[in-house]
Structures are given as C-alpha cells and as structure tokens.
C-alpha cells in the first residue's frame, strides 16, 4: 500500500502573503515534437534512438517506448541485435481526497472542508507512447500502464478550489492498489487578463499553469467578467498561460511565475488591444466550384495592437465561403482541401496577409492542383529497384501523406502538392535502406533517387514469454521525433530493416541529388 500525504498549506488564501507581478506577455507557444509536428532536419544524427512498440491489441502488453543513448554504445553493434524487452502491464488504483479552500457552510470560519476530488489523473512517461488518463468524480481511479517511471499529474476540475499537483517521478514497478493522495490547498496564483487600457479582454479567456520542468499543463479556468482568475498550485516554477476560448478572439500570452509555500502570487497578463475584425473569402476547386470543408487556418506572424500568438481555424461551408474573426496584423493563411488519396487538389499557403482595422476579404482563392512527379529509385550500386513504396509527407499544413509504388524498372509516378515535402522510400526488403529525403522546395517533375547505404537493423521484441509477434516497431530520433522507418514483427518477434544511419549514428544521404540541397 502506498500512502502519500501532501503537506497542507497552513495559511489559507485570505491569510497568505502576497507577491505581485505584472507580467509582460511572452511569445513562447511551447515545444512540439513527434511525427504529428514538423520534425527538425538536423542531419548530424541522433544522440538518442527511440524505439516505439505498439503490440497487437490482443496481447497483454501496452504501447511503450524505449530510448537508447547512442553516445554510450557502438551504434552498429546496437543495431545488429536491437532487443527490446517489453515492460509488463501494471495497475495503479487508489483514492485522491481534497479540501476546499473556502467552506460552504460558514464563510466566517475558513477551514478545512473535506471535498471529493473531481477531475483527471494523468500518467505519462517522460517521452514516448506510455501514457494514460482517467476522469474521476469521487477521487477513486484505476490506470493500467507498462511498468516504469511516470509523471503523475492531478488535474482538478475546479482548479480555483483545488490545486494542480505533479508527482514526478512516480515509479510503477508492481501493481499498486493502495495509492492514496491527500491534496492540500496549494498556493493561489491569481490576477487579471487585461488590455492596454486596463479593461478586461473581451470574451472568455481561459487561464492555466504549465509546470516548467515537465511541461505538463494544468486544468483551465475561465476569467470572470472583469478578467479575474484564480488558480492553485504547489511550490515550483510555472508558466501562467492565457488564451481566448473557441468563441473569443484573444491571443495566447504567457508569463513565468514561481509559486511559493503559503504565498499568494499575483500575475496580471496583458494582451494589448483586442479589436476583432472579420476575415472572409471563398475557396474554389480547379473547376471554379466552391470547395466544401476546406480547412482555413490563420496563424499570426505579428499582431498590430495585441500581444502574443494566435491561430484561428475554421472550415468552408458548402459554397466554399468562410468567415472568421481575427485581429489586425500580419498573418500566414493555410487553405487545406479535405484529404482524398485519389484527388487532385493541393493545399496552399498565403504569406504576409495584412489585416487592417476593416478586416480582410481574400476574395476567391483557387487551390492548386497536385503536380505529377515521375522518378526512379536505384540502389547504391545503380540497380533499379521495384516495389519500393514512396511515401511523401507534407511539411506543415496537415501533414498529409501521398504514396506510390515503383515498377520493376524502379520507376514511379506520384501526384503531390508543390509544397515542402519529406519523402521516405520504403524498400520491399531489408537488403535496401529506408531512405528519407527532404524537399524543402517541393519535388521537381523528374527525380532520380539513390537509396542510402545505411546500416542493417536486426531486432527482436521480447516479453517474459518470448518473442512478441504482430507488433508495430518504429525507430526514430528521440530528440527530434524524426522517423527512421517502421516494421512489423514476425511471429517470433523479429524485425529487420535497413535505416539511413552511418556507423557514428549520423544521418546518411538525406538530400536529393538533383537539387543541390
């Protein structure tokens, strides 16, 4: 049985010391990583290799990741026998109790009124796939995860009354059916979200804390009509982040704050002057017809009178029309047709769209058609290779993927958008190397590709009962999230592929030969 009692703050909100901060907005939008985002293209090679394993859903094992430090071992030796021992699944169950900082029964006696914890318990490994969360209305919870070390976050639904709490590390090696946690009051962080003239930002603003060390975000609270907010947290370094909800046009701003024991900290956030205006237009397909359900995404480059960052998104209606609220400033606009693998339409980006106090009408915007790319794929020795799957992934936009297959002569034909692409060439067997090539200017109409020499990878996914078959394995740079390639294990848990890495752990041949990039 595990029992954890978080020391209660002695002082209540009304009795806390106060420290005031008037924060200038910062423009940090937080780090983003992984395949869902644009991977960096540093070709110096990974310092750490991450192996994601997604076992067959019928197995007793759960998705998980293992990270290998390439600086401490020989890369070629590691890759020649890359054994991943899956961690068994473990269950943690228990109870979280809480207090409310202000009692319901007698406001003249501030005290410790027990209250059920209502909110979310979330556990996540420092990196990788192992993460799970559950909502509770009475404090009871159960989570099942691979054995390992986690960050356990307690996210109250009412974060004005109950604090945001992170337990890091929480080591789950065996089943833990007696987890108990008593939340104290924490320390209040409060303030206003205001415009330059001191008036509250128009509309509803959501405010939350982000733990600086882990990057974990706490629950959100909405400002009241005067722009006031209150959050509660335990001592530590945080960022206070504010942003309009989906119905209000308020940019994201943030400020750093250090929360101390028994101290109420004031953080006011300035959003400049918020005066929404309308951006409108019509999206047309190649035939000149309105395009339905195209995504319209405005990303602020610089706001005229407002502070912070902002992304506004909407879809076109059945006539291809769109209207959305933005702020005066300079914007990047992405127009993304709905994905259709057999379609011909491509996304388009409009840079430096100026929006003034009267708004902006983009008029009719025709999305371009995809371009036809023909090419050949050859081995390092110059032999044409058939049955190579060509996978082109958009950099930016919605990261759509387009695929083609080479014929016996190594030739392929691909219809892709004329936008920056990351292209993987997936050979049909492990004799050839999965080769990634960046096309920052898009692909040309004719491409000649030579697969990298690379290094062979032979690996096994194991459990206590032997090899784990039918598991998805993906190798990637642990720091940038860039993928080397993926494979499925055979019935014995074995997988083989050849990846574009040299013996020093660096990337090999990740630039197209014919563009000089």
């Amino acid at each position, binding site marked *: 049985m595990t029992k954890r009692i978080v020391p209660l703050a002695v002082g209540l909100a009304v009795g806390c010391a106060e420290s005031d901060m008037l924060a200038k907005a910062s423009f940090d939008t937080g780090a983003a990583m*992984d*395949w*869902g985002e644009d991977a960096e293209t540093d070709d110096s090679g990974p310092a750490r290799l991450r192996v*994601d394993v*997604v*076992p*067959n*859903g*019928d197995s007793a094992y759960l*998705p998980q990741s293992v990270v290998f430090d390439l600086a401490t071992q020989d890369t070629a030796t590691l890759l020649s026998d890359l054994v991943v021992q899956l961690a068994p699944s473990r269950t943690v169950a228990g109870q979280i109790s809480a207090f409310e900082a202000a009692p319901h029964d007698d406001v003249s006696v501030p005290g410790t009124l027990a209250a059920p914890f*209502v*909110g*979310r318990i979330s556990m*996540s490994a420092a990196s990788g*796939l192992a*993460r*799970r*969360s559950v*909502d509770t209305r009475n404090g009871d919870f159960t989570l099942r995860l691979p054995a390992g070390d986690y960050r356990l976050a307690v*996210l*109250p*639904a009412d974060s004005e009354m109950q604090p945001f709490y992170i337990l890091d590390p929480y080591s789950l090696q065996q089943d833990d059916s007696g987890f108990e946690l008593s939340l104290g009051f924490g320390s209040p962080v409060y303030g206003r979200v205001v415009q330059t003239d001191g008036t509250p930002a128009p509309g509803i603003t*959501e405010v*939350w804390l982000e733990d600086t060390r882990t990057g974990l975000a706490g*629950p*959100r609270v909405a400002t009241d009509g005067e722009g006031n907010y209150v959050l509660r947290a335990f001592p530590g370094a945080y960022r206070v982040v504010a942003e309009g909800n989906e119905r209000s046009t308020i940019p994201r701003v943030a400020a750093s704050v250090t929360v101390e024991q028994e101290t109420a900290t004031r953080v006011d956030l300035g959003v400049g002057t918020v005066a929404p205006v309308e951006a409108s237009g019509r999206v047309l397909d190649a035939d000149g017809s309105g395009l339905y359900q195209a995504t319209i995404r405005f990303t602020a480059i610089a706001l005229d009178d407002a502070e912070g960052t902002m992304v506004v998104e909407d879809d076109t209606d059945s006539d291809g029309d769109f209207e959305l609220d933005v702020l005066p400033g300079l914007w990047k606009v992405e127009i993304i047709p*709905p*994905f*259709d*693998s057999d379609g011909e339409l491509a996304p388009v980006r409009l840079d430096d769209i100026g929006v003034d106090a009267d708004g902006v009408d983009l008029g009719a915007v025709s999305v371009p058609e995809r371009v036809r790319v023909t090419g050949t794929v050859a081995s390092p020795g110059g032999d044409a290779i058939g*049955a190579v*799957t060509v*996978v082109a992934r958009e950099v930016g936009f*919605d*990261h*759509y*993927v387009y*695929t083609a*297959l080479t014929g016996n002569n190594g030739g392929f034909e691909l219809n892709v958008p004329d936008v920056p692409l990351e292209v*993987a060439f*997936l*050979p*049909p*067997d*492990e004799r050839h190397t999965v080769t990634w090539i960046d096309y920052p200017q898009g692909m040309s109409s004719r491409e000649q590709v030579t697969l990298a020499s690379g290094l062979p990878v032979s690996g096994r996914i194991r459990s206590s009962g032997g090899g784990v*078959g*039918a598991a*998805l394995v*993906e190798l990637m740079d642990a720091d940038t999230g860039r993928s080397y390639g*993926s*494979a*499925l*294990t*055979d019935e014995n848990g074995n*997988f*083989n*592929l050849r990846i574009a890495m040299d013996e020093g752990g660096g990337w090999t041949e990740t630039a197209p030969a014919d563009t000089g990039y």
Partner: protein
Amino acid sequence: MSVGMGGCYFWPPIIEEPQNVPPTITASYPAAGDTWTLEPGLNKAFVLVQDPDAGHPERLEYFWTIGRFGEQGTAVPITGNEVGSWLHLLADEKYDGNVLSVRVTDPSGGADDISWELTVPEESP
C-alpha cells in the same frame, strides 16, 4: 427431307481462373471492437494484413476514414517481411464519438475492414 450435317465436337482448352482470396486483417492495434481513447499527443494504430495471392503485397490499398471527417491523410504503409498500414492521429476533440475504420483492398477488389469507436477526453477536465 432431313439433312445431316457432319462435323466434330471440340472442347477448347480449359483456362482455370484462379479464385481471388481477399486480404485478411490478422492483427491490429487497437484490438477489433475495442474503443480507442486518444491521449494527448501522438497516437498510433495499425493493421497487419495477409493476402497470399495479391502478387506484390505493396499493391494492397488502405483507406483510413473517420466518420464524417472522411479519409485520413496520415497513413503510412508497412513493407518488408510483414505488411500492413499504420496511422498516426493527434487527439482532437472533434473526433470524439466517431468511428475510425480501415479498409484494405487488393487489386482484384477483395477487401477486409475493421473499425473502432474513438473517445477523446476534453482538453481540460
């Protein structure tokens, strides 16, 4: 009057048309029929497929769709000793309650499919 016409009977060579065996999804994550809860960040689903008469297994086509949001554009084929397809999906509340499906078809039109209901927790509890 009756007229008898001569001739001989001829059977052309019998050409056996092979019966197409459709592809079969033999394994997946999540398991068939499961509800898939998308956690914040990247989520990965996959199917493993067998189709002994498809010729090049790379010629199998996979269509990943989510309810009214239609075809998904982030699926990646898997080649090598085993074949299949995997999809990466970011948790987006708009997918909550929708069904994710993948349909695999071979060049002869044979097909198999599998689907999962999606749940996406709200961003803030």
